[in-house]
């Protein structure tokens, strides 16, 4: 098959192929489905995390009430609550910023650039904030365990401290492999696509410059030719 036959084959295949024809009802069902896109994934992740942090903050308020006699615990718990609220504020701000990913009035290149900029600017920050939810959960669990078992927070020896710290660190790092692999995947896809678009932009620019220079050269050459002919004619005639 010759390259010039491409359009003919393409038109024929796409006009007469047996692909499904969806009804208005089918399209309505598609419309209502849940998106699996990068931006929706980021936004849903943020919303879910804000809700989870809200639940854990409520749990800490319950713990503060239950363990109100322990000043040290109250200070720790209030500290966690304040940090939790601050993290929620940041997450809500990132959620607002993520709305730029939903812009549908931009070109393919514009869309890729927007996603890539967002990924580079916010992705790790978001993952860091979301990663902190796990230690909040673990710490709340540990405090509830102590309350139910001993009726108070009893961290007596170094071993307890080491185990708790280890649990907090592991819970924070728990989602790291997934985070890194997802970042890597999206970054690779977007960067490759953008490089493919921009790679030849420089070539296109070079061709444009070359064509412009060629036009100028023709103009200069043509003018010189006309002037030369005029001078020659004047010399001959005089």
């Amino acid at each position, binding site marked *: 098959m010759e390259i010039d036959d491409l359009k003919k084959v393409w038109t024929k295949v796409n006009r007469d*192929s*047996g692909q499904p024809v969806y009804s208005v009802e089918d399209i309505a069902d598609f419309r209502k489905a849940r998106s699996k896109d990068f931006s929706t994934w980021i936004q849903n992740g943020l919303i879910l995390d804000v809700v989870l942090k809200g639940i854990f903050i409520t749990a800490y308020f319950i713990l503060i009430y239950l363990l109100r006699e322990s000043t040290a615990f109250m200070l720790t718990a209030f500290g966690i609550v304040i940090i939790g609220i601050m993290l929620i504020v940041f997450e809500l701000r990132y959620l607002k910023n993520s709305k730029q990913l939903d812009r549908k009035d931009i070109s*393919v290149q514009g869309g890729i650039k927007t996603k890539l900029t967002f990924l580079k600017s916010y992705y790790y920050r978001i993952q860091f904030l979301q990663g902190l939810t796990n230690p909040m959960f673990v710490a709340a669990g540990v405090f509830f365990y102590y309350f139910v078992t001993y009726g108070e927070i009893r961290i007596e020896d170094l071993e307890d401290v080491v185990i708790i710290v280890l649990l907090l660190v592991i819970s924070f790092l728990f989602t790291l492999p997934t985070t890194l692999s997802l970042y890597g995947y999206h970054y690779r896809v977007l960067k490759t696509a953008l490089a493919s*678009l921009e790679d030849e932009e420089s070539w296109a620019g070079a061709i444009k410059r070359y064509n412009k220079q060629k036009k100028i050269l023709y103009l200069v050459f043509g003018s010189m030719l006309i002037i030369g002919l005029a001078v020659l004619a004047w010399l001959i005639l005089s």
Partner: protein
Amino acid sequence: MVKISEKEFLEQVTLHQNIIHKVCNMFCQDEDDRRDLFQEITIKLWMGHQSFAGQAALTTWMYRVALNTAITLKRKKKKIQETQSLHPNIPAYIEEEAGVTQQDIDALYKAIRHLGSIDRAIILLYLEEKSYEEIAEIMGITRTHVGVKITRIKKKLEKNLKHISE
């Protein structure tokens, strides 16, 4: 700004669903993936339908949203079996009418699928008889760049087709 009701939106998408099918065929290898991408594009069209505002032709806008979605959507990696069809079923009479064989069609799709996502998007628009200006507008690049890209993609396709036929 032109407001589009849900009913109008659904009717327009149903009417122009061929555009979405073509993008899905270009980017997906099997029926499940094609359906998933079709669904995702429909969602994205709905999410952005108010931003359409009638500033561009509806079909141009649809191509833009569909290609934006297709290029960046995370898909499961699936190994295509050699015997598996790469495109929707083609009625047998096409072979006689268009003077092309099933092998030609298979070869075309295989050659296209060896291209990168951006090249696929551009060649799709080219095969759809879109002007260089329209392709430039959809892709967000200059008209000259489109010309350079198409020339290069054609060369790549030619090479791929030769490689496949060998």
